[in-house]
């Protein structure tokens, strides 16, 4: 069969299925190409863990922002222009020397899109969703994070409409870093809670 109209060759059954669905939805007037484009573009260019990292870095340098973040994370995100779907209601949970936080959605794969972007595949995978509530220390150890026995692990299962983000502790040795430099060491995994910021790490 010819491949006319410049259409790229379909590479997988999933791609065919998605293209067929888009075709029918467009022909029925149920969706528009540019609306879909706008969403894809937003997640590929603007929305991602760099947003959450900016919030964390700001909270590290600005006690007032830290307080607003812990009181109302959606409001604190909006201050920086972040918000919307899957982030209308957000809560930041702060790591302390006594408490380590980690987030999951066991029933689905809920995640604070406006501040962390699209969740990684492992976050959406059955092993993570099944195991992290039941054996969080074992799962964190697989990520290279050993939580001391005297630190409480709090696993937040976002079953309702509130989305969680972990506010990590500012690591030692970062006293001289500027806010934008601090944001560089706050990785996505730090804000999920399967890692902690390390000096010298790149986001």
């Amino acid at each position: 069969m010819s491949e006319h109209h410049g259409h790229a060759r379909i590479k997988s059954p999933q791609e065919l299925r998605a293209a067929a669905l888009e075709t029918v939805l467009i022909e029925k007037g149920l969706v528009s190409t540019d609306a879909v484009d706008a969403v894809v573009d937003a997640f590929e260019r603007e929305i991602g863990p760099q947003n959450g990292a900016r919030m964390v870095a700001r909270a590290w340098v600005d006690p007032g922002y830290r307080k607003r973040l812990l009181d109302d994370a959606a409001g604190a995100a909006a201050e920086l222009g972040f918000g919307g779907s899957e982030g209308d209601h957000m809560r930041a949970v702060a790591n302390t020397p006594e408490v380590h936080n980690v987030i999951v959605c066991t029933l689905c794969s809920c995640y604070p899109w406006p501040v962390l972007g699209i969740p990684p595949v492992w976050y959406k995978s059955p092993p993570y969703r099944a195991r992290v509530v039941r054996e969080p220390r074992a799962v964190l150890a697989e990520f290279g994070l050993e939580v001391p026995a005297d630190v409480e692990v709090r696993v937040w299962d976002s079953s309702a409409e509130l989305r969680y983000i972990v506010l990590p502790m500012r690591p030692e040795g970062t006293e001289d870093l500027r806010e934008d430099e601090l944001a560089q060491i706050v990785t996505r995994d730090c804000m999920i809670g399967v890692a902690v910021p390390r000096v010298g790490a790149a986001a």
Partner: protein
Amino acid sequence: MDGIHDLGGRQGFGRVLAEPDEPPFHEPWEGRVHGMSETATLDPGFRYAIERMDPADYLTTSYYEHWLTSIETRCLEHGRFTRAELDAAAERIAAGEPVPRRLDPEAAVAARAMLRPRPKSTYSAPPPVHACGDRVTVVRLLPSGHTRCPGYLRGASGVVERVHAPMPLLDVFESEDGRVEPQAWYTVAFAAADLWQIAGPGHTVLVDLWERHLEAA
């Protein structure tokens, strides 16, 4: 619903495999599916349509295949299009026909606005029954349709950690009868040792539950 999606605490799963430098979408079709799900005119029940998937299919297909299933299932169930129309479109695409384009600049602006800060809805409801620090027990008889209460909590007791302003009870909203009933909801803290026989100390699980999921302990 005791579907395969209700994975919390289920055993037998292997290591969590993380992919370095993962992109938002691994293939362009994933982005299209995400965009369609967010912007198309679709009937409610996004999650319930996924939860009803055959368990083996659920476990052997990817996240965005679940989303594809959800869009297709709801459109087919609500008569937005027929299976024959969908199959015919697949045949045309497989034969090399391009996906048609339809432009609606207003819809594109609205789509982008959904991913920016927006006002929160507020709901009125009776005052909350439970208060911070109250001990509560999760009901055993969870809905056979969509529910936001994970099965691993069935019958377990915990302590209210935070009381939240009323929101619609999504258990009902997304299942068959479509009623929406705002009510108070709570973050409840459970000691892991009250959930599973083998659980270390210093391990707490916190879950957001509506009033209907709870009774006083």
